[in-house]
């Protein structure tokens, strides 16, 4: 089985989010970048398939050269090879078109991606990628098994979960649950050394229209101070929730 894992290079969750150039651009100064959390679950599951069932795992990212440490980390965790499409990922549709090209040329059976990246939170790339390729797509996926070409997956739905079956090739939009959090890998020294010799291929992007553009950013207005209520004055809390906030 040939598995492709799509990796987003995103700010660490504890990063301070600031903007520059008149609030038109994300300020990367001092920001630590990591593998997107949802993608990390997908990558770990892919490596599980490699180790338990036999598979090759390729990771791909659409990004500038500054994203290569993130791809190297994925290699150190256990991916076999990496591809970087050399373009700034301005738009989900653009990214999906680049990834579709990689899938078509690589003949992957299983494409795993996080259901959304934790920077722009667009949540569109895996679904668009599947639609461009005409592949089946399973989103919000928290469990996947592959037996030959048969796929069984568990998908989160509002208020529960659903079990779905299908056939490879398939695109998965994955999330927490694909693997246990305790099974997420931290690169060890051997992995880091091995990653240095693994192939990291740089591809030039294909032409693709951009349909959306972030034109401006804004931080939430400063919040007014929290109204503190004495624990023995719960009538006051109920009064505020009813008359001031109007939520009960």
């Amino acid at each position, binding site marked *: 089985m040939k598995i492709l894992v799509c990796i987003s290079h995103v700010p660490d*969750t504890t990063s301070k989010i600031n*903007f520059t150039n008149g609030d038109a651009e994300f300020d990367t100064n001092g920001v630590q970048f990591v593998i997107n959390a949802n993608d990390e679950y997908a990558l770990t599951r892919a490596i599980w398939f490699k180790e338990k069932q036999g598979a090759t795992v390729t990771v791909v990212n659409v990004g500038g050269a500054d994203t290569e440490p993130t791809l190297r980390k994925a290699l150190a965790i256990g991916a076999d090879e990496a591809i970087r499409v050399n373009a700034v990922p301005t738009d*989900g*549709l653009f990214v999906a078109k680049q990834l579709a090209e990689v899938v078509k040329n690589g003949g992957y059976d299983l494409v795993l991606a996080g259901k959304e990246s934790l920077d*722009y*939170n*667009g*949540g*569109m*790339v*895996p*679904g*668009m990628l*599947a*639609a*461009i390729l*005409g592949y*089946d*797509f*399973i*989103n*919000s996926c928290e469990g996947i098994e592959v037996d030959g070409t048969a796929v069984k997956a568990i998908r*989160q*739905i*509002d*208020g*529960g979960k*659903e*079990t*779905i079956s*299908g056939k490879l090739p398939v695109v998965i939009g994955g*999330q*927490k649950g694909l693997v246990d*959090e305790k099974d997420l890998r931290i690169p060890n020294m051997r992995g880091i050394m091995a990653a240095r010799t693994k192939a990291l291929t740089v591809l030039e992007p294909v032409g693709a229209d951009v*349909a*959306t*553009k*972030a034109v*401006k*950013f*804004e*931080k*939430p207005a400063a*919040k007014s101070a*929290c*109204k*503190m*209520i*004495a*624990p023995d004055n*719960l*009538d006051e*809390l*109920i009064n*505020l*929730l*009813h008359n001031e*906030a109007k*939520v*009960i």
Partner: protein
Amino acid sequence: MSVLIYAESAEGKFKKVALELASYAKKVADSLGTTVTAVTVNASDVSELGKYGVDKVLKVSSDKLNTFNAKAYADVIKQAAQKEGAKLVVLSSSTDSLYAAPAVAIGLNAGFASNVIALPESTAPFVVKRTGFSNKAFNFTEISSDVKVIALGKNSFGLVEASGAATAEDFAPSLNDADFSLKVEGVEKVSGKVTIADADVVVSGGRGMKGPENWGMLEDLAEVLGAALACSKPVSDVGWRSHEEHVGQTGKPVAANLYIAVGISGAIQHIAGVNSSKVKVVINTDPEAPFFKVADYGIVGDAFQVLPQLVEKLKEFKAKNA
């Protein structure tokens, strides 16, 4: 530029998000000088949509669509948009709609923006305000394609009634066999309980609850408020509560009208996941808990003393205001 919404229903009844979409689309359509069409799947009485501004309903009825299927539903929505010549398609941010939306966008050659939280900043160019960076910032996105697809965040616009009635028309889109290659083998739904996705009020517990045996107090509070129960990540990690209830950046997002956090200190990832909630109440013994910085109302106190009293007082309040 006509506006099309996909009005989600369950067992024939429209979900609240469908009525919120209608309210939102009506306002956008008014500003564009056009009308709102809704497409529905296996919904029987569609008159309710008219009360929230829908002018016309395309009713799709098909046993093949009894179970949600993203590919087929995307195909239905695409064909409805094409039939109406819709330039703007508005979907909700439910798990199902977000599953179908990217395929709708590809099918219509449209740009897509999710997590939209306000009316368009401008319609020419078309710019919408959406949340990003896990609710730590807003992102104004311009959609430049001819047809545009957006997904509206839950509780971001509210319900606005309109005068008018919707005309209904049967609509039979062509369904492609290839859309049904994935088979739903089974569905496990939590029954009889309010789910986090549907809830307007969410009651959430953290490590401060000291153990799963103490969750009865939170269940009582949730019951009196008609709320869904949730928990912080450490609580689900240690197995006190199911992962289904974990809310936060890598758990379920919460955009409730009221979010009550008990014994949760407020890690940045937790706050990111619940920050879209309108009103946040925090109950914690530690006055320095970071959650107080983003809360609207706070109580520094012992949950084990505060919760039983709060439940009793809310019961009294409900009895008086019934």
